């Protein structure tokens, strides 16, 4: 897509980079049910990109396509300028795409620290035999990655619970730990699946702050799904709106807010 300018200025004057990921005409079906129908959009370097839409619009499916969990029947995913072949999710993760989940998917039997360390897995290269010996390479690697993990833990202010088993944490903290795990991977794109679902106002504010900080400090590109329109409009640089598996709007928050299709979808429209 050379027609698109390499740089893009957002409403509030922020400069965001070139296209890093592009979805081209994605169609996803489960048996006869069409979850996503012919959707295209792009994600630019360093932006916060939101995908919104009513329940069952196919937002989560879209995220699952990006993270390689679902394989679309039609369409292509372009990543960093090359077409991405059909990949297993762990290969996608190795390419630098990390995510959180709508219903928290932490490893409940492990401590917070271990959970965050799993986020570093894609960066750890020692093999089974080196790890069995432990001393030497394996330990050096462990310590090095532990340092990275601790930085994230500091950043998200969860030092106090680092050795607590995740199963014992309250909901809001779990969400934060999940974000920490995704961040620990130092992803080039971070996917957030309803990061604020089920939170109270205060927790939402905290989470919004963390998301902005992440974007600001690490320059991480973020794609997020959210129900809460207010939050989305404040946070994101550009918004895709989906309804019944179709894209009905795409643009800056202001453009989307004034889009007739979007208003219809959200407020309802009289059918004849």
């Amino acid at each position, binding site marked *: 897509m050379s027609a698109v300018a390499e740089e893009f200025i957002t409403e509030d004057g922020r400069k965001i980079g070139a296209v890093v990921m592009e979805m081209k005409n994605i169609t996803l079906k489960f048996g006869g049910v069409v979850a996503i129908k012919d959707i295209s959009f792009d994600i630019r370097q360093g932006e916060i990109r939101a995908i919104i839409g009513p329940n069952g619009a196919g937002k989560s499916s879209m995220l699952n396509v990006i993270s390689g969990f679902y394989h679309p029947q039609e369409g292509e995913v372009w990543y960093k300028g090359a077409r991405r072949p059909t990949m297993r999710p762990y290969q996608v993760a190795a390419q630098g795409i990390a995510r959180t989940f*709508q219903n928290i998917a932490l490893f409940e039997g492990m401590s917070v620290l271990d959970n965050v360390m799993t986020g570093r897995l894609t960066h750890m290269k020692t093999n089974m035999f080196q790890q069995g010996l432990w001393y030497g390479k394996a330990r050096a690697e462990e310590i090095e990655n532990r340092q990275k993990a601790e930085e994230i833990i500091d950043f998200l202010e969860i030092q106090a619970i680092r050795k607590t088993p995740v199963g014992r944490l309250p909901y809001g903290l779990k969400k934060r730990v999940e974000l920490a795990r995704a961040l620990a991977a130092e992803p080039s794109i971070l996917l957030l699946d309803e990061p604020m679902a089920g939170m109270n106002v205060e927790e939402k504010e905290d989470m919004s702050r963390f998301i902005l900080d992440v974007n600001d400090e690490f320059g991480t590109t973020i794609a997020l799904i959210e129900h809460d329109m207010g939050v989305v409009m404040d946070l994101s640089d550009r918004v895709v709106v989906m309804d019944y598996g179709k894209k009905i709007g795409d643009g800056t928050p202001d453009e989307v807010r004034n889009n007739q299709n979007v208003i219809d979808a959200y407020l309802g429209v009289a059918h004849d």
Partner: protein
Amino acid sequence: MPEQFIWGIEVFLNGLMAGVLYALVALGFVLIYKASGIFNYAQGVMALFAAMTLVGIMNGQVPFAHLINAIFGTNVHHFGWHVPAFVAILLTACVMVGFAWIVQRFIFRHLVGQEPIILFMATIGLAYFLEGVSDLMWNSEIKKLDVGLPQGINFAIDDYTYGIFGYGFFIDNLDIVATIIAAILVLALTIFSQYSKQGRAMRAVADDHQAALSVGVSLNFVWIMVWSVAGFVALVAGIMWGTKSGVQFSLSLIALKALPVLMLGGFTSIPGAIVGGLIIGVGEKLFEFAVGPMIGGATENWFAYVLALIFLVFRPQGLFGEKIIERV
């Protein structure tokens, strides 16, 4: 017609009959699994316990005689009466209901909401416990069980097939009776679970036990009922196998025969249990007949498992399961 082929048909028929018995045991598993999510490894030992209790009651054995004698220095063995088979079966069924209540009250009530694997391990513990109890209660000798089922070669079939093939098929009367009884039982269970009030409650619990609880189904009652029905199925299976090869420890191993049936048919499907049982019964008999002699025999020990394993690798949801769509 070549002899091999005719023998093959005979093996096939015998395999079908064995398959019905496997299906019967598998049915006990399916019932409990459907209603409570418990994969009941103790089903085989329940069959053993039921058969031993039946024999014990029929012969008027004194329960725990050996233990009592050892502690008090007495020498009791039998009450000296014989109970008719029909009454004994009823009494044993009552014992199985009591057992169901005990299991529910003292074990699984405390394990509600635990992970399936914990429940499974609890049933392995239960199997050990019950095996020890049945040995203590009725001693571990091999016992003969005779509730009046016909046994021995069926001459009608023998004559009939001799007339056609010039070779008489050996088919045991007991197998024929077992097939008929198993078929009736399966039919009855299906009707029970589809059309009766309790059956509907059972299916509701199977689907979502919290939702069932919220519309007023008594979980406790349903679970005791299911365990009772499974106990009854175990009793029937115990009678069949006990009559065939004596009541002894190896009877509990029929549980191991039922497991591959479950893998093939799926843990939750009654038709799956039946079809799976038949496939395994026929498959292992035919394999032993055709390939067994070449590779050392006794392939029945593992054939069913390997068959089920290979099948599952290609179709993980089993014969009758629906394709699983994974979600996050």
